[in-house]
Protein backbone atom coordinates (compact mmCIF):
# COMPACT_ATOMS: atom_id res chain seq x y z
CA UNK A 1 0.00 0.00 0.00
CA UNK A 2 1.60 3.27 -1.04
CA UNK A 3 0.20 6.38 0.59
CA UNK A 4 1.13 10.05 0.65
CA UNK A 5 1.88 11.58 4.03
CA UNK A 6 1.48 15.35 4.36
CA UNK A 7 4.17 16.69 6.65
CA UNK A 8 3.32 19.82 8.64
CA UNK A 9 5.77 22.74 8.78
CA UNK A 10 7.10 21.98 12.30
CA UNK A 11 8.20 18.48 11.18
CA UNK A 12 9.67 19.38 7.82
CA UNK A 13 13.11 19.77 9.34
CA UNK A 14 13.08 15.96 9.55
CA UNK A 15 12.15 15.45 5.89
CA UNK A 16 14.69 17.90 4.52
CA UNK A 17 11.90 20.39 3.85
CA UNK A 18 9.74 17.86 1.97
CA UNK A 19 6.07 18.66 2.37
CA UNK A 20 4.74 15.32 1.09
CA UNK A 21 6.39 11.93 1.47
CA UNK A 22 5.39 8.65 -0.14
CA UNK A 23 5.50 5.66 2.21
CA UNK A 24 4.28 2.07 1.99
CA UNK A 25 2.41 0.32 4.77
CA UNK A 26 -0.87 -1.52 5.35
CA UNK A 27 -1.76 0.39 8.52
CA UNK A 28 -1.07 3.82 9.97
CA UNK A 29 1.38 2.21 12.40
CA UNK A 30 3.30 0.60 9.54
CA UNK A 31 3.42 3.91 7.70
CA UNK A 32 4.86 5.65 10.76
CA UNK A 33 7.50 2.92 11.02
CA UNK A 34 8.28 3.51 7.34
CA UNK A 35 8.52 7.25 7.97
CA UNK A 36 10.91 6.62 10.87
CA UNK A 37 13.15 4.50 8.64
CA UNK A 38 13.34 7.18 5.96
CA UNK A 39 13.39 10.14 8.33
CA UNK A 40 14.76 9.16 11.73
CA UNK A 41 13.27 11.05 14.65
CA UNK A 42 9.79 11.23 13.13
CA UNK A 43 8.28 8.48 15.27
CA UNK A 44 9.23 10.19 18.51
CA UNK A 45 7.52 13.40 17.35
CA UNK A 46 4.29 11.54 16.58
CA UNK A 47 4.03 8.81 19.21
CA UNK A 48 4.73 8.37 22.88
CA UNK A 49 4.51 5.13 24.88
CA UNK A 50 0.69 5.46 25.00
CA UNK A 51 0.15 5.98 21.27
CA UNK A 52 -0.34 9.08 19.18
CA UNK A 53 0.79 12.18 21.07
CA UNK A 54 -2.15 14.18 22.34
CA UNK A 55 -1.23 17.39 20.56
CA UNK A 56 -1.04 15.67 17.17
CA UNK A 57 -3.93 14.44 15.07
CA UNK A 58 -3.47 12.00 12.24
CA UNK A 59 -6.08 11.94 9.50
CA UNK A 60 -6.69 9.38 6.82
CA UNK A 61 -8.44 11.39 4.15
CA UNK A 62 -10.72 13.67 6.18
CA UNK A 63 -11.13 11.32 9.14
CA UNK A 64 -9.23 11.44 12.43
CA UNK A 65 -7.78 7.98 13.15
CA UNK A 66 -8.92 8.35 16.80
CA UNK A 67 -12.44 7.78 15.45
CA UNK A 68 -11.34 4.98 13.08
CA UNK A 69 -9.12 2.14 14.33
CA UNK A 70 -6.35 4.34 15.68
CA UNK A 71 -2.86 3.24 14.66
CA UNK A 72 -4.30 -0.02 13.32
CA UNK A 73 -6.47 1.83 10.78
CA UNK A 74 -6.12 -0.05 7.50
CA UNK A 75 -5.01 1.89 4.46
CA UNK A 76 -5.81 1.70 0.80
CA UNK A 77 -3.45 2.40 -2.01
CA UNK A 78 -3.17 6.09 -2.89
CA UNK A 79 -4.74 7.42 0.32
CA UNK A 80 -3.58 10.66 1.83
CA UNK A 81 -2.48 10.85 5.44
CA UNK A 82 -2.25 14.23 7.13
CA UNK A 83 -0.38 15.01 10.30
CA UNK A 84 -1.90 18.04 11.99
CA UNK A 85 -0.17 19.29 15.14
CA UNK A 86 -1.54 21.91 17.50
CA UNK A 87 -0.18 25.36 16.73
CA UNK A 88 -0.83 28.37 18.93
CA UNK A 89 0.50 31.44 17.15
CA UNK A 90 -1.73 34.44 16.68
Amino acid at each position, binding site marked *: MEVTVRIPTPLRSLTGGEEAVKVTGATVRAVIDGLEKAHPGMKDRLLDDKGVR*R*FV*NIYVGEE*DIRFLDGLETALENGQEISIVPAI*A*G*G
Partner: protein
Amino acid sequence: MPKTYSDLFSEVRASVRVLTLEQLRAKLEERADFTLLDVREKDEVRGGFIPGALHVPRGFLEMQAEQKLPDKSREIVVYCAAGVRSVFAAKTLAELGYQNVWSANPGFVRWKDMAYPVEHPADLSQAQLDRYSRHILLPEVGEKGQEKLLESRVLLLGAGGLGAPATLYLAAAGVGTLGLVDADVVDASNLQRQVIHATSRIGMAKVDSAEKTINDLNPDVKVLKYQERLTSENVDRIFGQGWDAIIDGCDNFPTRYLVNDASLFHKIPVVHGSIFRFDGQVTTFAPFTGPCYRCLYPEPPPPHLAPSCAEAGVLGILPGIVGTLQATEAIKLILGRGEPLVGRLLTYDSMRMTFRTLKLRRDKGCPACGENPTLKSYVDYEGFCANVR
Protein backbone atom coordinates in the same frame (compact mmCIF):
# COMPACT_ATOMS: atom_id res chain seq x y z
CA MET B 1 -58.31 60.38 -29.73
CA PRO B 2 -55.50 59.42 -27.33
CA LYS B 3 -56.40 57.50 -24.19
CA THR B 4 -56.81 59.35 -20.89
CA TYR B 5 -55.30 57.99 -17.71
CA SER B 6 -58.70 56.82 -16.50
CA ASP B 7 -59.33 54.97 -19.78
CA LEU B 8 -55.96 53.30 -19.48
CA PHE B 9 -56.45 52.39 -15.84
CA SER B 10 -59.91 50.87 -16.38
CA GLU B 11 -58.61 48.90 -19.33
CA VAL B 12 -55.64 47.55 -17.43
CA ARG B 13 -57.67 46.86 -14.35
CA ALA B 14 -60.13 44.82 -16.34
CA SER B 15 -57.28 42.60 -17.51
CA VAL B 16 -55.87 41.92 -14.03
CA ARG B 17 -57.18 39.48 -11.44
CA VAL B 18 -57.85 41.15 -8.13
CA LEU B 19 -57.61 39.72 -4.62
CA THR B 20 -59.27 41.44 -1.64
CA LEU B 21 -57.20 42.22 1.43
CA GLU B 22 -59.28 39.72 3.40
CA GLN B 23 -58.38 37.03 0.88
CA LEU B 24 -54.73 38.01 1.05
CA ARG B 25 -54.76 37.87 4.81
CA ALA B 26 -56.33 34.40 4.74
CA LYS B 27 -53.66 33.24 2.30
CA LEU B 28 -50.93 34.49 4.62
CA GLU B 29 -52.54 32.85 7.63
CA GLU B 30 -52.78 29.49 5.93
CA ARG B 31 -49.13 29.95 4.86
CA ALA B 32 -49.99 29.44 1.23
CA ASP B 33 -47.01 29.02 -1.10
CA PHE B 34 -46.84 32.22 -3.15
CA THR B 35 -44.73 35.35 -3.53
CA LEU B 36 -45.99 38.61 -2.12
CA LEU B 37 -44.56 41.56 -4.03
CA ASP B 38 -44.51 45.12 -2.72
CA VAL B 39 -44.01 47.59 -5.59
CA ARG B 40 -43.98 50.80 -3.51
CA GLU B 41 -40.99 53.11 -3.25
CA LYS B 42 -38.26 52.56 -0.69
CA ASP B 43 -39.35 55.38 1.63
CA GLU B 44 -42.93 54.05 1.70
CA VAL B 45 -41.69 50.60 2.71
CA ARG B 46 -39.76 52.23 5.51
CA GLY B 47 -43.10 52.94 7.23
CA GLY B 48 -43.96 49.22 7.29
CA PHE B 49 -44.92 46.42 4.91
CA ILE B 50 -46.97 43.24 4.80
CA PRO B 51 -44.94 40.45 6.47
CA GLY B 52 -42.85 38.39 4.10
CA ALA B 53 -43.18 40.76 1.15
CA LEU B 54 -40.45 41.02 -1.43
CA HIS B 55 -39.74 44.61 -2.39
CA VAL B 56 -39.22 45.74 -6.00
CA PRO B 57 -40.25 49.35 -6.67
CA ARG B 58 -42.60 49.76 -9.65
CA GLY B 59 -39.96 51.75 -11.54
CA PHE B 60 -37.49 48.85 -11.43
CA LEU B 61 -39.97 46.07 -12.04
CA GLU B 62 -39.26 45.31 -15.71
CA MET B 63 -35.53 45.43 -15.07
CA GLN B 64 -35.43 43.31 -11.92
CA ALA B 65 -38.39 40.94 -12.29
CA GLU B 66 -36.56 38.03 -13.88
CA GLN B 67 -33.73 38.19 -11.39
CA LYS B 68 -35.92 38.46 -8.31
CA LEU B 69 -38.86 36.36 -9.54
CA PRO B 70 -37.21 33.61 -11.56
CA ASP B 71 -40.20 31.23 -11.62
CA LYS B 72 -42.78 32.55 -14.07
CA SER B 73 -45.37 29.92 -13.18
CA ARG B 74 -45.33 30.76 -9.48
CA GLU B 75 -48.33 32.54 -7.94
CA ILE B 76 -47.53 36.20 -7.31
CA VAL B 77 -49.65 38.72 -5.40
CA VAL B 78 -48.70 42.34 -6.00
CA TYR B 79 -49.63 45.24 -3.77
CA CYS B 80 -48.88 48.95 -3.48
CA ALA B 81 -50.38 51.72 -1.34
CA ALA B 82 -53.83 52.12 -2.89
CA GLY B 83 -54.12 49.62 -5.73
CA VAL B 84 -53.10 51.62 -8.80
CA ARG B 85 -49.42 50.79 -9.19
CA SER B 86 -50.10 47.16 -8.26
CA VAL B 87 -52.55 46.82 -11.16
CA PHE B 88 -50.05 48.23 -13.64
CA ALA B 89 -47.33 46.07 -12.13
CA ALA B 90 -49.50 42.95 -12.47
CA LYS B 91 -50.14 43.81 -16.12
CA THR B 92 -46.41 44.26 -16.72
CA LEU B 93 -45.63 40.91 -15.12
CA ALA B 94 -48.26 39.23 -17.28
CA GLU B 95 -46.66 40.80 -20.35
CA LEU B 96 -43.30 39.41 -19.20
CA GLY B 97 -44.81 35.94 -19.21
CA TYR B 98 -45.74 35.49 -15.54
CA GLN B 99 -48.77 33.23 -15.62
CA ASN B 100 -50.34 33.52 -12.19
CA VAL B 101 -50.41 37.13 -11.03
CA TRP B 102 -52.90 38.89 -8.78
CA SER B 103 -53.23 42.45 -7.55
CA ALA B 104 -54.25 42.85 -3.91
CA ASN B 105 -56.61 45.82 -3.63
CA PRO B 106 -56.93 48.42 -2.38
CA GLY B 107 -53.46 48.13 -0.80
CA PHE B 108 -51.20 48.80 2.13
CA VAL B 109 -52.88 52.00 3.40
CA ARG B 110 -56.11 50.11 3.93
CA TRP B 111 -54.25 47.04 5.23
CA LYS B 112 -52.73 49.16 7.96
CA ASP B 113 -56.10 50.80 8.80
CA MET B 114 -57.58 47.35 9.28
CA ALA B 115 -54.80 46.70 11.83
CA TYR B 116 -53.64 43.66 9.87
CA PRO B 117 -50.10 42.47 10.67
CA VAL B 118 -47.37 44.84 9.56
CA GLU B 119 -43.65 44.26 9.64
CA HIS B 120 -41.26 47.15 10.11
CA PRO B 121 -37.90 47.35 8.46
CA ALA B 122 -34.80 47.69 10.58
CA ASP B 123 -34.36 51.05 12.19
CA LEU B 124 -31.29 52.22 10.29
CA SER B 125 -30.39 55.87 9.76
CA GLN B 126 -29.84 57.26 6.27
CA ALA B 127 -26.11 57.29 6.95
CA GLN B 128 -26.25 53.61 7.95
CA LEU B 129 -28.32 52.72 4.89
CA ASP B 130 -25.56 54.27 2.78
CA ARG B 131 -22.67 52.79 4.72
CA TYR B 132 -24.03 49.25 4.72
CA SER B 133 -25.76 49.37 1.33
CA ARG B 134 -23.65 46.52 -0.10
CA HIS B 135 -24.69 44.33 2.83
CA ILE B 136 -28.31 45.40 2.59
CA LEU B 137 -28.41 44.39 -1.07
CA LEU B 138 -27.63 40.80 -0.04
CA PRO B 139 -30.88 38.97 0.76
CA GLU B 140 -28.90 36.90 3.31
CA VAL B 141 -28.09 40.07 5.26
CA GLY B 142 -30.61 42.79 4.36
CA GLU B 143 -31.65 45.55 6.74
CA LYS B 144 -32.67 43.05 9.41
CA GLY B 145 -29.31 41.31 9.28
CA GLN B 146 -27.48 44.60 9.40
CA GLU B 147 -29.51 45.58 12.45
CA LYS B 148 -28.49 42.28 14.06
CA LEU B 149 -24.85 43.05 13.36
CA LEU B 150 -25.19 46.52 14.88
CA GLU B 151 -26.73 45.02 18.01
CA SER B 152 -24.14 42.25 18.29
CA ARG B 153 -21.11 41.98 20.55
CA VAL B 154 -17.89 40.22 19.64
CA LEU B 155 -14.90 39.76 21.94
CA LEU B 156 -11.48 39.60 20.32
CA LEU B 157 -8.67 37.94 22.25
CA GLY B 158 -5.48 39.57 21.08
CA ALA B 159 -5.18 42.74 19.00
CA GLY B 160 -2.23 41.21 17.17
CA GLY B 161 -1.74 39.22 13.97
CA LEU B 162 -5.17 37.56 13.88
CA GLY B 163 -7.02 40.19 15.91
CA ALA B 164 -5.94 43.08 13.67
CA PRO B 165 -7.59 41.97 10.42
CA ALA B 166 -10.54 40.37 12.22
CA THR B 167 -11.21 43.59 14.14
CA LEU B 168 -10.90 45.75 11.02
CA TYR B 169 -13.46 43.73 9.08
CA LEU B 170 -15.87 43.32 11.98
CA ALA B 171 -15.72 47.08 12.59
CA ALA B 172 -16.28 47.78 8.90
CA ALA B 173 -19.20 45.35 8.89
CA GLY B 174 -20.86 47.29 11.69
CA VAL B 175 -20.61 44.81 14.54
CA GLY B 176 -21.89 47.25 17.16
CA THR B 177 -19.68 46.36 20.11
CA LEU B 178 -16.15 45.02 19.90
CA GLY B 179 -14.27 43.98 23.02
CA LEU B 180 -10.49 43.95 22.72
CA VAL B 181 -8.27 42.05 25.14
CA ASP B 182 -4.54 42.71 24.84
CA ALA B 183 -1.96 43.74 27.42
CA ASP B 184 0.78 44.69 24.95
CA VAL B 185 1.94 47.91 23.36
CA VAL B 186 2.60 48.38 19.64
CA ASP B 187 6.11 47.35 18.65
CA ALA B 188 7.82 48.05 15.31
CA SER B 189 8.12 44.29 14.71
CA ASN B 190 4.31 43.98 14.85
CA LEU B 191 3.70 46.19 11.85
CA GLN B 192 4.72 43.59 9.25
CA ARG B 193 1.29 41.98 9.87
CA GLN B 194 -0.77 43.84 12.49
CA VAL B 195 -2.44 46.19 10.04
CA ILE B 196 -4.75 47.87 12.55
CA HIS B 197 -1.78 49.65 14.18
CA ALA B 198 0.51 52.33 12.76
CA THR B 199 4.11 53.48 12.79
CA SER B 200 3.04 56.70 14.49
CA ARG B 201 1.61 54.66 17.35
CA ILE B 202 4.61 52.52 18.29
CA GLY B 203 4.70 52.37 22.07
CA MET B 204 0.95 52.97 22.45
CA ALA B 205 -1.21 50.28 24.08
CA LYS B 206 -2.54 47.99 21.35
CA VAL B 207 -6.12 48.35 22.56
CA ASP B 208 -5.83 52.16 22.32
CA SER B 209 -4.17 52.02 18.92
CA ALA B 210 -6.83 49.63 17.60
CA GLU B 211 -9.59 51.81 19.00
CA LYS B 212 -8.24 54.79 17.06
CA THR B 213 -8.39 52.89 13.77
CA ILE B 214 -11.85 51.52 14.55
CA ASN B 215 -13.26 54.96 15.42
CA ASP B 216 -11.88 56.35 12.20
CA LEU B 217 -13.25 53.46 10.15
CA ASN B 218 -16.73 53.23 11.64
CA PRO B 219 -18.19 55.51 14.32
CA ASP B 220 -21.12 53.08 14.79
CA VAL B 221 -18.81 50.72 16.67
CA LYS B 222 -18.38 50.90 20.42
CA VAL B 223 -15.04 49.62 21.68
CA LEU B 224 -14.59 48.04 25.10
CA LYS B 225 -10.92 47.84 26.00
CA TYR B 226 -9.30 45.34 28.34
CA GLN B 227 -5.63 46.15 28.57
CA GLU B 228 -4.78 43.02 30.47
CA ARG B 229 -3.62 39.49 29.93
CA LEU B 230 -6.45 36.96 30.11
CA THR B 231 -6.11 34.87 33.29
CA SER B 232 -8.20 32.53 35.42
CA GLU B 233 -8.80 35.53 37.72
CA ASN B 234 -10.19 38.00 35.16
CA VAL B 235 -11.74 35.66 32.58
CA ASP B 236 -15.19 35.49 34.20
CA ARG B 237 -15.41 39.26 34.43
CA ILE B 238 -14.37 39.71 30.79
CA PHE B 239 -16.41 36.82 29.34
CA GLY B 240 -19.50 37.71 31.38
CA GLN B 241 -20.42 40.75 29.29
CA GLY B 242 -23.00 39.19 26.98
CA TRP B 243 -20.77 38.35 24.02
CA ASP B 244 -22.34 36.68 20.99
CA ALA B 245 -19.01 35.23 19.86
CA ILE B 246 -15.34 35.18 20.78
CA ILE B 247 -12.52 35.39 18.26
CA ASP B 248 -9.53 33.59 19.68
CA GLY B 249 -6.39 35.07 18.23
CA CYS B 250 -4.11 34.71 21.20
CA ASP B 251 -0.56 33.49 20.86
CA ASN B 252 0.09 30.77 23.43
CA PHE B 253 -1.21 27.39 24.57
CA PRO B 254 -2.08 28.18 28.21
CA THR B 255 -4.48 30.95 27.13
CA ARG B 256 -6.00 28.71 24.43
CA TYR B 257 -6.99 26.12 27.06
CA LEU B 258 -8.23 28.80 29.44
CA VAL B 259 -10.36 30.31 26.66
CA ASN B 260 -11.78 26.89 25.88
CA ASP B 261 -12.78 26.08 29.45
CA ALA B 262 -14.18 29.55 30.13
CA SER B 263 -16.16 29.62 26.88
CA LEU B 264 -17.77 26.31 27.87
CA PHE B 265 -18.60 27.62 31.36
CA HIS B 266 -20.09 30.78 29.78
CA LYS B 267 -21.54 28.94 26.73
CA ILE B 268 -20.10 31.34 24.17
CA PRO B 269 -19.05 30.12 20.71
CA VAL B 270 -15.35 30.55 19.93
CA VAL B 271 -13.94 31.08 16.48
CA HIS B 272 -10.47 29.64 16.77
CA GLY B 273 -7.57 30.69 14.57
CA SER B 274 -3.94 29.72 14.94
CA ILE B 275 -0.90 30.22 12.77
CA PHE B 276 2.65 28.99 12.47
CA ARG B 277 5.11 30.17 9.81
CA PHE B 278 3.15 29.50 6.59
CA ASP B 279 0.28 27.38 7.97
CA GLY B 280 -3.03 28.27 9.56
CA GLN B 281 -5.91 26.47 11.24
CA VAL B 282 -9.47 27.72 11.71
CA THR B 283 -12.48 26.12 13.35
CA THR B 284 -15.56 27.15 15.29
CA PHE B 285 -16.25 25.67 18.70
CA ALA B 286 -19.97 25.65 19.47
CA PRO B 287 -20.24 24.86 23.19
CA PHE B 288 -21.72 21.41 23.87
CA THR B 289 -23.09 21.02 20.34
CA GLY B 290 -19.77 20.63 18.54
CA PRO B 291 -16.29 19.55 19.60
CA CYS B 292 -14.20 21.84 21.81
CA TYR B 293 -10.49 22.64 21.78
CA ARG B 294 -9.77 19.84 24.23
CA CYS B 295 -11.61 17.35 21.96
CA LEU B 296 -9.31 18.49 19.15
CA TYR B 297 -6.06 18.67 21.12
CA PRO B 298 -6.36 17.01 24.55
CA GLU B 299 -2.91 18.29 25.51
CA PRO B 300 -0.55 21.00 24.29
CA PRO B 301 2.85 20.14 22.85
CA PRO B 302 5.76 20.32 25.27
CA PRO B 303 7.23 23.83 25.25
CA HIS B 304 10.38 22.87 23.33
CA LEU B 305 8.25 21.52 20.46
CA ALA B 306 6.00 24.57 20.36
CA PRO B 307 8.04 27.59 19.30
CA SER B 308 6.05 30.82 19.06
CA CYS B 309 5.88 33.11 16.04
CA ALA B 310 8.37 35.35 17.84
CA GLU B 311 10.88 32.50 17.69
CA ALA B 312 9.94 30.73 14.47
CA GLY B 313 8.72 33.63 12.32
CA VAL B 314 5.44 34.00 10.44
CA LEU B 315 4.55 35.16 6.96
CA GLY B 316 2.96 38.58 7.54
CA ILE B 317 -0.02 37.94 5.25
CA LEU B 318 -0.87 34.59 6.85
CA PRO B 319 -2.74 36.05 9.86
CA GLY B 320 -4.52 38.35 7.39
CA ILE B 321 -6.03 35.31 5.68
CA VAL B 322 -6.76 33.40 8.88
CA GLY B 323 -8.07 36.44 10.80
CA THR B 324 -10.47 37.38 8.01
CA LEU B 325 -11.71 33.78 7.89
CA GLN B 326 -12.40 34.08 11.62
CA ALA B 327 -14.28 37.35 11.08
CA THR B 328 -16.35 35.66 8.37
CA GLU B 329 -17.29 32.89 10.79
CA ALA B 330 -18.30 35.43 13.46
CA ILE B 331 -20.52 37.32 10.98
CA LYS B 332 -22.19 34.05 9.95
CA LEU B 333 -22.81 33.10 13.58
CA ILE B 334 -24.43 36.50 14.25
CA LEU B 335 -26.57 36.39 11.13
CA GLY B 336 -27.44 32.71 11.64
CA ARG B 337 -26.55 32.11 7.99
CA GLY B 338 -24.46 29.55 6.18
CA GLU B 339 -22.59 26.62 7.65
CA PRO B 340 -20.05 27.54 10.30
CA LEU B 341 -16.90 25.46 10.75
CA VAL B 342 -18.44 23.50 13.62
CA GLY B 343 -16.96 20.00 13.60
CA ARG B 344 -14.60 20.94 10.79
CA LEU B 345 -10.98 22.05 10.94
CA LEU B 346 -9.92 24.22 8.03
CA THR B 347 -6.21 24.05 7.38
CA TYR B 348 -4.46 26.54 5.15
CA ASP B 349 -1.04 26.08 3.62
CA SER B 350 0.06 29.37 2.09
CA MET B 351 3.06 27.84 0.33
CA ARG B 352 1.03 25.25 -1.55
CA MET B 353 -1.94 27.60 -1.51
CA THR B 354 -4.30 24.87 -0.42
CA PHE B 355 -7.24 24.82 1.92
CA ARG B 356 -8.42 21.52 3.32
CA THR B 357 -11.21 20.64 5.74
CA LEU B 358 -10.81 17.78 8.16
CA LYS B 359 -13.59 16.28 10.25
CA LEU B 360 -13.62 16.93 13.98
CA ARG B 361 -15.74 15.02 16.44
CA ARG B 362 -16.77 15.49 20.01
CA ASP B 363 -14.79 13.31 22.36
CA LYS B 364 -17.17 11.49 24.72
CA GLY B 365 -14.36 11.32 27.25
CA CYS B 366 -13.49 15.03 26.97
CA PRO B 367 -12.81 16.38 30.47
CA ALA B 368 -14.42 19.73 29.54
CA CYS B 369 -17.43 18.89 27.36
CA GLY B 370 -17.73 15.06 27.36
CA GLU B 371 -20.38 12.84 28.92
CA ASN B 372 -18.89 13.06 32.39
CA PRO B 373 -16.89 16.25 32.48
CA THR B 374 -14.37 16.34 35.29
CA LEU B 375 -13.30 19.90 34.75
CA LYS B 376 -15.47 22.09 36.94
CA SER B 377 -13.23 25.07 37.51
CA TYR B 378 -10.15 26.72 36.10
CA VAL B 379 -6.82 24.97 36.48
CA ASP B 380 -3.21 26.12 36.48
CA TYR B 381 -2.87 26.58 32.73
CA GLU B 382 0.77 27.59 32.76
CA GLY B 383 1.59 24.48 34.79
CA PHE B 384 -0.63 22.28 32.57
CA CYS B 385 1.30 23.43 29.48
CA ALA B 386 4.74 23.40 31.09
CA ASN B 387 4.52 19.87 32.45
CA VAL B 388 3.70 17.94 29.30
CA ARG B 389 6.51 15.89 27.93
